[in-house]
């Protein structure tokens, strides 16, 4: 199975992807690489809407059959929406990691995303990681 990389997304070393929408809203999920490593996902602990978060802060957790992985916010700002459909169907992340977003954060400063990688750099980075 080949892992997919979306050229329209930015990627964190901690395997979150981020996509910028209007009004400084950043949509966050986890990468295909991350869902593949985690295997069957059984639970997502979502952040609280309204929470003020900093870039790099743990705001939630994705739990699979075998492991739990923290989810970080890639930017500082306020959580404005969470994907509540994941409460009942966490496996959506396995099926469609780039469609199954986890939360949206309204960023104070979008330049924080410059610290993230583009798809090609993230793919190259994953190639160096131990499987």
């Amino acid at each position, binding site marked *: 199975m080949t892992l997919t990389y979306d050229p329209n997304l930015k990627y964190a070393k901690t395997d979150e992807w981020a996509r910028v929408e209007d009004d400084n809203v950043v949509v966050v999920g986890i990468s295909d690489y991350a869902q593949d490593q985690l*295997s*069957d996902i059984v*639970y997502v*602990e979502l952040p609280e809407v309204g929470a003020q978060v900093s870039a790099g802060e743990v705001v939630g*957790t994705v739990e699979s*059959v075998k492991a739990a992985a923290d989810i970080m916010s890639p930017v500082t700002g306020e959580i404005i929406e969470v994907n509540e459909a994941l409460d009942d169907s966490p496996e959506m992340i396995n099926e469609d990691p780039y469609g199954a977003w986890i939360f949206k954060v309204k960023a104070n400063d979008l330049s924080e995303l410059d610290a993230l990688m583009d798809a090609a750099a993230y793919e190259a980075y994953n190639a160096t990681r131990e499987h």
Partner: protein
Amino acid sequence: MSELKRTALYEVHVAMGARMVPFAGWEMPVQYPTGPITEHQAVREAAGLFDIDHMGQLKLVGPDAEAFLQYVQPRDVGKMKVWDAEYSYLCYEDGTFVDDIFIYRLPDDEWMIVINAANREKDIFWLDTHIVGFDADLIDISDATYMVALQGPKAQTILQKLTDHDLNQVAFHTAAQIQVGGVETLIGATGYTGEYGYELFFPEEKAIAMWEMILEAGKDEGLLACGLAARDSLRFEACLPLYGHEIHAEVEPIGARLGWVCDWDKGPWIGRNAVLKHKLEKPKMLLVGLEMIDKGVPREGYQVAKDDKVIGWVTTGMKAPTLNKFLALAYVPRGLNRFGTELDIIIRGKPKKAVVVKRPFYLPAYRR
């Protein structure tokens, strides 16, 4: 870390796309590309094939073989007929666990004991220290013997395609020496998934042929190759204890709810007095089933608390795939073990409510 051992099927697993992980000194498939939940459901609804060659097998022979077995474990093996296969365990003098085992009574004063991979050297050493004075020999046949498990409601249909032996004649927890696809095989109607099925023992050099033959025979029956993750979730739902989790050298059989194995009238066995004392005085810590009330995934090693005080620990926990519930097995103090008792499991620093529920979570097929 010492070099991990590989089973004869290692290359086959890799070619199938399995994810290999270290387990009890072996490099074993934790899952295939199908994924652990799909593999789990295959065993509940159709069948699954497991490479479990990491398990050890010991043969016990000689005129005193039965007397020796009576002395080293709690079950009355005198009640076992030839070809019976039964669960038991080994205890230290203080009643704590050495290992849990499966005993097969074979013809001609021969017995086979199946032991956990991690405990192979320890069990052999422990048994050898006690065999002095018995006219019996313990032979480690693990390397020459290959072991796979075929489990699930379609297991019999699949295996029957490969043998002329009428499998209806092989009752639950009995064994037979048969030909499987031309390979001389000891089969036990045994397993550790909560479903009917078989464990197969045959010569190591036939491993690949047997594996491929069974997968082929099961391909129209929904058979999947299954990894250790599915094996763990299957045995967990049926509340079958696993060495290193529910049982180890710091807990004892009565608290682990395994007192039913013990025969108190058969004469002395190692650990008997200590286990009997636990039974009569009631154990301090008891294994219970917990179901999450709050959201969260309970996992092994998490603390169990009552009124902000840590009172126990989780031995295994997960989202149970068949039951679609977040469940745990945990040791808690006697008095807090009643159904309906609310406790907290500490999940990443936060207390999350759980309630004591009935075990097993999933009633095994053979108990219905």
